[in-house]
């Protein structure tokens, strides 16, 4: 401390490192914000503490969302069963088999989930994954 005082003539605060840090933080938050996907926030998932953690969905993965009324949506757009079948058929013809994830509300009737699964299976995709909550975020 003493040395510094002796050295510096004008005691001006150096802003550069602070600005660097703040910009770093900003960029971090901007990037992590982008990660947020357009998923249906209405859907309440069931808990599955023992299920394997979902990290990377895999190439060409499709997430099919079924809310508690049985309405189906893909990538945030609501689709009916015929449209879903077309979508699956298109992707299947183009890319071959791809992973399918179903985000079903916990109160959805199995009938509605079954409808989606039947379409997937009849289009040639028999391996289906359900998404559940492994660990819930802490509430703010």
């Amino acid at each position, binding site marked *: 401390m003493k040395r510094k005082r002796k050295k510096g003539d004008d005691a001006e605060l150096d802003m550069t490192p602070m600005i660097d840090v703040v910009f770093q933080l900003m960029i971090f938050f901007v990037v992590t914000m982008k990660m947020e996907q357009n998923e249906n926030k209405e859907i309440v998932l*069931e808990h599955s503490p023992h299920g394997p953690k979902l990290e990377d969905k895999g190439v060409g993965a499709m997430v099919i969302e079924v809310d508690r009324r049985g309405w189906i949506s893909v990538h945030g757009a609501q689709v009916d069963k015929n449209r879903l079948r077309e979508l699956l058929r298109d992707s299947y013809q183009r890319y071959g088999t791809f992973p399918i994830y179903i985000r079903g509300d916990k109160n959805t009737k*199995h009938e509605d989930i079954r409808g989606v*699964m039947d379409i997937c299976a009849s289009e040639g995709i*028999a391996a289906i994954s359900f998404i*559940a*909550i492994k660990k819930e975020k802490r509430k703010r």
Partner: protein
Amino acid sequence: MAMKKKKKKGDAPKLELTPMIDVVFQLLIFFVVTLTEEDINAHLDVFRPAPEQTRPPDEKVEDLVTILVYNQRTLGGEGYSLEGRKVRLAELDRTLSRLASVSTSVSIVIKCTNDSPHQNLVKVLDICAKSGLKNLSVFSM
């Protein structure tokens, strides 16, 4: 006008950092506040045969365990039955983990009724994942 006056006044054209820092801090605070932590999700993989062969195998295949998932509001119990006997979830858990300690390649057939809620199926799949059972097929009835 204002610019001209300023230029005449100032001798050393020094960059004013204060407003920039203000703005950057505002943005930073905005992002910190709006940042929502995401849930950690799990994936439960099952096999779903094509509808033409939706019928579960009738003949008694070896190493095949059938779990029925139904709506507990209509049929009572907790919504699960193992080989035709109504069981509680904890009981199902015990049975399956005992089964898995012998072999994890046992075929589990999960049959769901149309009116059963999706959460029942997910709970069964969670128990299967806990025991390490991998060979799961979901049928509807």
